[in-house]
């Protein structure tokens, strides 16, 4: 999501715009900082975005964090493959992917399917956090230990 140019994050027009963007791109959460202000928008189960203000406004650089480009990569957890097989993002070609970038997941969340010897194995995340990246193409061959999904455990 590209950084929005200047403007108060608490500008209601800005917030509406952000809400539209969240719906359009199917994002579940945005965390914005500008100067000393911070806003986090989260889409709830009933699909209505809720606004939560930061506890104390503080000075910070205006920047919208892009989930794909978090500076501190080393804090990311990487879900690796426990088997050899073929990677599938969804349970069938028509189904939605198990996870996408931005999704919040828990240890029991299924992140993908790996098919081995005609058996379709659902792979659990094993970690909590926000999906930062999906590292494999749908239908790609996978070796043991291959990185599949990157997760930010602190998000």
């Amino acid at each position, binding site marked *: 999501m590209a950084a929005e140019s200047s403007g108060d994050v608490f500008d209601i027009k800005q917030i509406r715009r952000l809400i539209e963007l969240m719906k359009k791109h199917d994002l579940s959460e945005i965390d914005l900082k500008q100067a000393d202000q911070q806003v986090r928008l989260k889409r709830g189960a009933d699909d209505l975005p809720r606004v939560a203000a930061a506890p104390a406004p503080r000075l910070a650089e205006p920047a919208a964090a892009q989930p794909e480009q978090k500076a501190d990569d080393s804090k990311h957890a990487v879900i690796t493959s426990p*088997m*050899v097989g073929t990677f599938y993002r969804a349970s069938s070609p028509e189904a939605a992917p198990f996870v996408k970038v931005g999704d919040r997941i828990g240890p029991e969340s299924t992140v993908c399917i790996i098919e*081995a010897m005609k058996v379709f194995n659902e792979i659990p995340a094993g970690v909590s956090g926000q999906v930062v990246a999906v590292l494999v193409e749908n239908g790609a061959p996978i*070796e*043991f230990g291959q990185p599949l999904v990157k997760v930010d455990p602190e998000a």
Partner: protein
Amino acid sequence: MFKRILVANRGEIALRVIRACRELGVESVAICSEADRDASYLELADEAICVGPARAADSYLRIDRVISAAEIGNVQAIHPGYGFLSENAHFAEVCRSCDIGFIGPTPEAMAQLGDKNSARALALEAKVPCVPGSDGLLSSEQEALETARRIGYPVLLKATAGGGGKGMRVASNDLTLQSAFQQAAAEAQAAFGNPGIYLERYVERPRHVEVQIIGDMHGNVVHLWERDCTTQRRHQKLIEESPSPQLSPETRQAMCEAAVRLAKTAGYHSTGTVEFIVDPDGNFFFIEVNSRIQVEHPVTEMITGVDLIKAQIRVAAGEPLSFTQDDIVPRGHVIECRINAEDPAHGFRPCPGRIEKMIVPGGFGVRFDSHVSAGYTVPPHYDSLIGKLIVHQPTRREAIETMQRALKELRVEGVATTVPIHLEILSHSAFHDSKIDTTFVERTLLG
């Protein structure tokens, strides 16, 4: 011919198979554990797939992952190498049911020959001399005693599911036989999951001589002469050579023909080795069949000029053997020394670690089969073989001299190796005069 083969092994034999594939124009898919990820031979394969963490049981022995690797690697066949899954009839069966070629014998032949007792029954059927022994598995202590009295002490109790020199106990009289019988059955159950034991006369101070055979899927079986593997330590081979010194031409001929008869009776195809022991009087007796390619196959390759791995792959692809028995003429003398990362000065304890410097010998008639070079770290999880040094010369004396020269040229720094024990054996008069047996190394050289 196959378009693509999975090499289901590691180390020097994986490199050997990959080399054969490259020469045959066959693509190769290598597998590796996490401990072998940086092995340089993987780069010679067309693809490398990690199949698990370091422990063999979690990687190279994982049939499901090996088969998955074969599937995503799009191979037509799997070469199992030696050790690991190479003599696992269940694995061969899984390959067959997944429509993947197995470069080895059929699961049925493997199962029949892998069970020592049924192999022995097959040998008797093929009129191959066997060590006098029990009529099948022993059903009771009483039967053991009667058999022992009939064939004469000392006797050897052997687990039918045993192998690699394990699961054997010697008894020299009724008393020791009675206690040995109960213990042997219990140990066999614990170690191999099969309590079946049988009994043979114990041949003291034997020589170990084995015959290389190869069969195709069209009923042709050819032998490629013998290898003498008498120089052992605790049933592990140290040095192999061909021809077997002190074997009369008649015995040699009879032994090799017996091996072919046995393979034909078993409906065997692919490479295999028929093992015999030879007593001090020159009588030979069948012991077991190894239904795989063996570590010491280069000895036979040098003595006959036949590339056994390529022949094995061709046979698996359905081709008839490209040579007849008359084409297999042995020339000169070959000796092989197994170079292990072990310290002979400290009970042969394994010495994993990083090889800082390595100089490899060469010259006329010198071959070194190794996946190892400077900078390689010998992992602690697998066998300690780092290379095989093979020498081919016109005479045995010259082969010994060249091997000594080559061993002194070989430099491996960073890990201890078995080079010193090889030099000691090769300079011993008993080895020169071929007056050795399978107990020679332990009796003579190791305090």
